[in-house]
């Protein structure tokens, strides 16, 4: 496959649809909410005590080549017209609002719209509250793995404090973006194997696991029981909304300790279930990449660091019976 190395000075753009600051019609001048995201590609994160190179998005226009992992959340209210502005000065990137269904030119997929170099504005109006995410959709297999993703929360008309059904009130909310990392991928170039060649992007063997950027060591070292902002801390009888994002490439098996009480799934993939799905105590959820679950817990038993046990399953599964490749425990402390 022939390579073009001279498009806007960026190499390895085979299959991409690079546009410099594309302009499209139909943008409103007064969106209800506006977010700016600037890609960075020189970040690092410490996960389970190990430093790993990450890429992501900074909030606002930024010249920084470092930034947070995962990327800062986008939070809007149902029905708002929203602008997400990408500013990608060095390398083409894009933003796909995963689960949000805007028109094609705002969907953020390079090969059906643009891989953006420079500026671009995505316009969308979420019609259903729930838990979504956003991520780069350029050479996605590498860029999403590198950390170019963040949570996207759509609040219902009543606003924060109310679950997606606009009826269930919660006291404590946590976003768990549960990810797997293959550190051997994390020194690859932006355009790895876009033009052919074998970068091993079919061969994924995660060796780090994290919940919203925190590994087991970081979670275990959490003396405050609610910091980093991953651990759940609540009082007996309170309602917890756990926004669970499967950010891994491999499937997960999620087991809730029975002390957490009934596990109630209120919404999946940004859609309120027609009936709340009460999975009972000690529930197990098996989920695949990029699913989201809005889970309600109302624990009534006091306990410190009650675990949610997460197993990562190998994606290679010829027999149909999955093999566990890694684990992490998230914690809920009930006082």
């Amino acid at each position, binding site marked *: *496959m022939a390579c073009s190395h001279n498009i806007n000075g960026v190499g390895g753009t*085979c*299959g991409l649809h690079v546009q410099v600051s594309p302009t499209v019609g*139909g943008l409103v001048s007064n969106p209800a909410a506006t977010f700016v995201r600037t890609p960075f590609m020189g970040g690092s994160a410490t996960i389970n005590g190990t430093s790993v190179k990450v890429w992501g998005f900074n909030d606002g226009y930024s010249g920084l080549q470092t930034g947070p992992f995962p990327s800062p959340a986008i939070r809007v209210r149902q029905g708002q017209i929203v602008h997400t502005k990408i500013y990608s000065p060095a390398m083409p990137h894009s933003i*796909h609002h*995963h*689960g*949000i*269904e*805007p*028109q*094609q030119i705002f*969907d953020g*997929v390079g*090969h*059906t719209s643009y891989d953006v170099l420079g500026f671009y504005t995505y316009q*969308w*109006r*979420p*019609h*259903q509250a729930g838990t979504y995410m956003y991520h780069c959709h350029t050479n*996605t*297999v*590498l860029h*999403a*793995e590198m950390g170019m993703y963040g949570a996207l929360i759509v609040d219902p008309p009543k606003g924060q404090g109310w679950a997606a059904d606009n009826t269930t009130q919660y006291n404590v909310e946590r976003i768990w973006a549960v990810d797997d990392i293959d550190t051997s991928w994390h020194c690859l170039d932006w355009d*790895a*194997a*876009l033009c*052919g*060649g*074998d*970068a091993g*992007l*079919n*061969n*994924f063997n995660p060796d780090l696991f994290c919940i919203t950027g925190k590994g087991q060591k970081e979670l275990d070292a959490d003396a405050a029981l609610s910091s980093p902002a991953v651990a759940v801390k609540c009082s007996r009888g309170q309602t917890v909304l756990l926004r669970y994002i499967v950010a891994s*490439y491999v*499937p997960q098996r999620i087991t809730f300790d029975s002390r957490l009480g009934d596990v109630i799934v209120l919404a999946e*993939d*940004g*859609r309120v*279930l*027609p*009936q709340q799905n009460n999975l009972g105590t000690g529930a197990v959820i*098996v*989920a*695949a*990449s*990029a*699913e989201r679950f809005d889970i309600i817990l109302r624990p009534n038993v006091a306990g410190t660091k009650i675990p949610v046990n997460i197993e990562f*399953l190998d*994606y*290679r*599964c*010829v*027999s*149909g019976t*999955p*093999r566990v490749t890694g684990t992490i425990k998230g914690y809920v402390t009930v006082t």
Partner: protein
Amino acid sequence: MKRRDFLKFGATATTATLVSGSVGLLSFSQRASASTVSVVLNAVAGDITMVDGTVVRVLTFSQNSAPSFPGPTILAQEGDSVQVTVNNTLNTSVVFALGGTGIRQYVSANSSVTTTFAVPRAGTYLYHDDQNNGVNRVLGLHGALVVMPAGYNNRSFAGAPTFTRQYKWLIGSVDTSWSNQIRANGASYVSSLNPNTYQPRYFTLNGQSYPHTNDDPNTAPHGLYGQAALIRLLNGGGMVNAPHFHGNHVEILSVNRQNYTSNRKKKDVVAIFPLDTRDVLLPFVPPPDAYPPITSQVQEFPMHCHSEVSQTAGGGQYPNGLHVCMHMGMTPPNEPTL
């Protein structure tokens, strides 16, 4: 581009419908009465070409002597019986097993067996060779059986919502190392392959990868707004997939033939483990979060597996894997008899 090339026998005689394995868009007309469907499946070894030109050896069920990855789709209706003749040209045994049922026929190396079974109730079934912990299946010995409900051309079961078109989406994956070992040592080497060594390098839908999937209106769904598509997902490959739909959430109608007559979930990711089937309804409604709203404009949205390793070919070349687009606001160039 492959064109729709289904075979359809006269409705008055003993009736069989076998559809080429590469074809997703299914044409079906209910027959006045059930009958015996006669099917010949040849178990053959042969070479097929991946999206980047790599030639791989596969073992497949086929209507002829050429490999068919995946095997042809058997299209039947409730009440039918299926008479399957498996001509096994391989130097190893094969099995015709129908997922979710007890139907299973063993066929020795270099021999032929005919078996007849009453079709199970309406739904989507994976037929496959279940030997060697899935090795035979993953190498290509699999295909779809679609059973339409009695009395309906436009529902997947009585009580399901109606569709305008229906597609079979059969997921596969290819490990070139396994393929080379079969080429070097013959089909009987299947028993020497350790399923835990599987490392897929190609990821297919109806045997093709993007962009060929998207060039083929028999796999890439087309429709005007309001023309819902039934998509019958099957996983014959060797990895856990997470088909993610842009543009529209899909309604989950059936999970491994457990039918949901009400309170159906809407999902943008449909988890599917190997051997599993999912029937989903893609409503073909204008993208609901668009502003300004879409009314009739043509829109193209991807469906791709979000276990992103599947978005590669030969270790790279994003997005030439398990990826296709839905074409909304336009009808397909080759409309089947609906």
